[in-house]
């Protein structure tokens, strides 16, 4: 996993703690939205965050593919199976207005949350993200675990991908018939990886490495970062209150 994140421009908060807190606040406020009239606002907030974060839009879009498929499936299926008010009917098939509204809200929430999460967190180097999570109170054992996982993630994935390709080129069985062989591949990757990881971890501990030393140090939060969090907190609360006001008919 590459640790080389581009240096952050001065106009955006780069501290991983700030980005994590902002991502969680925005994600939960978006998850609480329940009115279909809020869908355009969800989209606007997600796009604004994407623009402000200056994350690589192509990278974010490619990682949004899975969420896009789920959102599309919701919009295609839910209107046919949920709701009472029929919008359109063809034989036994009924397209319900309330089912469509529910599907749009769910799909919009999903896409907005994933966009915001990726926009805020993808530009931060993964090791700094783990350091940020540790600074926010994640137990040291879990932070060390995440740190070592990131250390070996690319290596093991590449090793397994190579082994699978080699097996295919040798005419190995695919699909169901290849599963026992896949079990053997996984076992050998685990044995090799485990030995390497034990050696590296022992050496790191002998040199005095632990969570504090192995991870990049984080400076105290700047005033700009604190203000960014306050703005996002106000925006998140505003989003929830606006949705509640629409639900109760106050607006």
């Amino acid at each position, binding site marked *: *996993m590459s640790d080389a994140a581009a240096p952050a421009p001065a106009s955006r908060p780069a501290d991983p703690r700030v980005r994590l807190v902002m991502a969680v606040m925005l*994600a*939960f406020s978006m*998850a*609480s939205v329940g009115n279909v009239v809020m869908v355009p606002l969800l989209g606007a907030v997600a796009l604004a965050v994407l623009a402000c974060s200056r994350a690589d839009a192509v990278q974010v879009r490619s*990682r*949004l593919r*899975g969420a896009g498929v*789920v959102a599309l499936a919701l919009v295609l299926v*839910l209107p*046919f*199976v*949920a*709701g009472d008010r029929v919008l359109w009917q063809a034989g036994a098939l009924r397209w319900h207005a*309330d089912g469509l509204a*529910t599907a749009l809200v*769910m799909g*919009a*929430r*999903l*896409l*907005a*949350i*994933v966009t915001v*999460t*990726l926009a805020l*967190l*993808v530009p931060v180097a993964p090791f700094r993200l783990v350091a940020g999570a540790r600074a926010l109170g994640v*137990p040291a*054992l*879990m932070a*060390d*675990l*995440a740190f*070592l*996982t990131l250390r*070996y*993630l690319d290596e*093991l*994935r590449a090793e*397994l*991908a190579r082994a*699978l390709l080699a097996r295919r080129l040798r005419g190995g069985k695919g*699909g*169901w018939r290849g*599963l*026992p062989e*896949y*079990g*053997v591949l*996984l*076992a*050998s*990757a*685990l*044995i090799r*990886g*485990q030995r390497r*990881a034990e050696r*590296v971890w022992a050496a790191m501990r002998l040199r005095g490495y632990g969570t504090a030393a192995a991870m990049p140090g984080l400076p105290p939060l700047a005033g700009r970062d604190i203000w960014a969090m306050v703005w996002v907190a106000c925006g998140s609360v505003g989003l929830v209150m606006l949705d509640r006001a629409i639900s109760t008919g106050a607006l």
Partner: protein
Amino acid sequence: MHLPDGIVPVELALAGYVASGALTAFALARVNRLPDPRAGIPRAAMLTTVFFAASLVAIPVPPMSVHLVLSGLMGVMLGWFAMPAIVVGLFLQAVLFGHGGVTTLGLNGLILGLPALLAFGVWRGAGRRWPDVAALAAGGGAVVLALAIFAAIVLAGLPVALDAGAETLAIKALLLAHLPLVLAEGGVVLVLLRVLRRVEPALVPHV
């Protein structure tokens, strides 16, 4: 078998965080009772990377395909360490790749963590005497429990207006599509543990 963001009500997502947090704290307390709790970190990290890499293998279930989950394997090999390892894996998947979700991290932790702990219990109870049966039961049983928790959460979170017949049909389709995964996971865990028991028995606890 990840629950994405935005599907379940926010109250359910928050309850998932509380339950998953409590379970992880309990698991960490058990790990911290070990003479050297940090000694298990390299193994847990390797298994967490395997948890990621499992998505490389697609099992064809026409007209779609499903991916290995391997939470049973994590339970067998990591014991109590499996719960924090799964939470870490899910967190990294959500923030780096957009798989799963940030708001559903707690619920996904329960969907995959509880089955891992069940597999740990199965292996600890029967792994020494009947290793092959225990491996099959741990691998396949973990998927069955994960499916059951997933279905229960989705049912609890779906809109009340959903047609009851369609709901039953959707759950049946989900279970049917994942039935092959139960067999595949059981088989992969069986082969993997057999190889490890012969080549590197130190890696397999309780045998």
